């Protein structure tokens, strides 16, 4: 837990530093009409960096006698990855093949691989869900869904 605290505080610090550098490319001072474009980003990232350092110091100074708690409980990492990796894969597939195909593949994969549900159910849900979203979301509510490189060539 302590190591995770330190890594997280360092990551926040690094991000603040990155934003600080990006902010200094603008005017961080005072213009005739008030603060320049970089004024707030500069001081916000500077402030963030300070608080990240405070968190870091607090964590390092905290008594290490506290009961050791793992950031990710033992044995939970595989089930966590089983959730995260398919999501990442689904988004990647969405870039290439658009929402419908990616959604169907993702549903089928998770239901079959993690849920171990029978094939008829797997095929039924992963076929019906994209179909339902097409009619409800895209036709009824007129909200566009991601189109992949493959789909753009289709006529609808």
């Amino acid at each position, binding site marked *: 837990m302590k190591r995770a605290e330190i890594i997280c505080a360092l990551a926040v610090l690094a991000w603040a530093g990155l934003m600080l550098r990006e902010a200094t490319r*603008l005017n961080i001072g005072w213009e005739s009409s*008030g603060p320049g474009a970089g004024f*707030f*980003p500069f001081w*916000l990232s500077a402030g963030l960096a300070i608080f990240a350092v405070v968190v870091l110091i607090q964590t390092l100074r905290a008594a290490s006698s506290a009961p050791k708690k793992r950031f990710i409980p033992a044995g939970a990492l595989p089930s*966590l990855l089983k959730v995260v990796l398919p999501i990442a894969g689904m988004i990647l597939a969405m870039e290439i093949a658009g929402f419908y195909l990616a959604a169907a593949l993702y549903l089928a994969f998770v239901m079959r691989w993690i849920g171990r549900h029978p094939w008829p159910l797997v095929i039924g849900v992963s076929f019906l869900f994209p179909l339902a979203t097409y009619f409800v979301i895209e036709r009824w509510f007129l909200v*566009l869904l991601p189109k992949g490189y493959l789909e753009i060539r289709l006529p609808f």
Partner: protein
Amino acid sequence: MEALGNLLFGFTISLTPYNLVVAATGVFLGIIIGVLPGLGGTSGVAILLPLTIVMPPTSGIILLASIYWGALFGGAITSILFNIPGEPWSVATCFDGYPMAKKGKAGEALASAFIPGFFASLVAILLFTFFAPALALIALKFGPPEYLAVLVLAFSTFVGLGGGSLPKTMASMFIGFLLGSVGLDIVTGQPRLTFGSIELLAGFSFITACIGLFGLGEILLSAEESLEFRGVQAKVKVNDMWSVVKSLVQHARTFVTGTLLGFWVGVMPGTGATPASFMSYGMAKQSSRHPEKFGTGVPEGVMATESAAHAAGIGALLPLVTLGIPGSPTAAVMLAGLFVWGFIPGPRLFAEQPDFVWGLISSMYIGNLMGLLMCLLLLPFFAAILRIPYAILGPLIVLFSAIGAYAVKNMMLDIWLLLIFGVVGYVFKKLGYPLAPLVIALVLGDMTEEALRQSLIMSDGSFAIFFTRPIAAGLIGVAAVIFCLPIVGPLLRRVVAGLRTAPASGR
């Protein structure tokens, strides 16, 4: 009495068949969202927000608000029957609700959640109906300095009343402001913090951040627990309802304190129903004649939690409608909705969009009544939703989140950001960085900066303007006091504890 006339006018809008169907749909979806752990009111409202773009704005806000009311009701079902909180604000409902259910009093426990919850909502909506127009009238006189002061007050409540680690709360808030300042500068029009990316010119989508941090983050958290639902079967009988109504009179004090406390906490920006429910539970326990029985299944425990949560949910919309400042993360999503529908949030809404404001207020009465009826009548159906295996439910929630994130700006980048925000939400939640300051700073960032810059233009760059105008100075003063609470609070508590001979029995 003007409010009564306006309210009646509001009912002519909210009682149209279309809006009634919208409200019923919202409440129904809201209860399902509330029942499902891993899908909270905030992310639920955020996911469905893009679908309201094609609706008239009044129907849109009625839909989103009804989802909120539904989620407030639904959370209790999971807590009581399954001992898993369906929503963060129903965590304290588990403490006494589940032991009651295990003793075979599930029906009474559910009735102790729904009925006081409904009456607390009713009291809160009445307060809202008569208080909101007066507050909006005062707020109409506000200039940019007063606005900035109100915003500072809002942010000070995170620090003063949030209860988390001070540097982590501040870091969270600053991250929100920084993300909010990405995009075109509001005054000079220069691109800021975009790293040369064209897609970032439009800034970060608040909706994406909300769905990611709250929705996906929650799914990742529940992934490591490998949820298994083994619940208690239950039906609410007429007898249960009757005995709860009778005990409501008996525990009137618990109910009234819970409701008023909840409403007040809800109105305070950025806190919302979750802390309200915990505070009310703690107060009911401390003021009870038998505090040792709390946690073993006393109906007052459920009653205190639920009445505060419901009242806070209503209260959270008060500053949203009158000042344009959300009282809770869920209300912050609705604020994003106001922008999407083309409204300028703030006190002028009352004058310029009376049909919108009063349609919303009157729909609160309808939505909460619908919530109560649906929960009582369709309870077995809602409890059955939890028997859908997680391997089907989880991916469906993820896909809906992706649709919600994409629909705002039609950019694939937002779906990737969704995943990143999800991981950030997971890490922050585990390490105790509060998420509410982050999302509210993100949504209010532009408004805060605008208020500050306009004030400085008014005063030719002098900060004295915030201290020479009475209202602004007063508000800044209150904010300063609240801001110092985490430092002064423990000192005070030590003094109080020293004076009292009996040790304070906390949680």
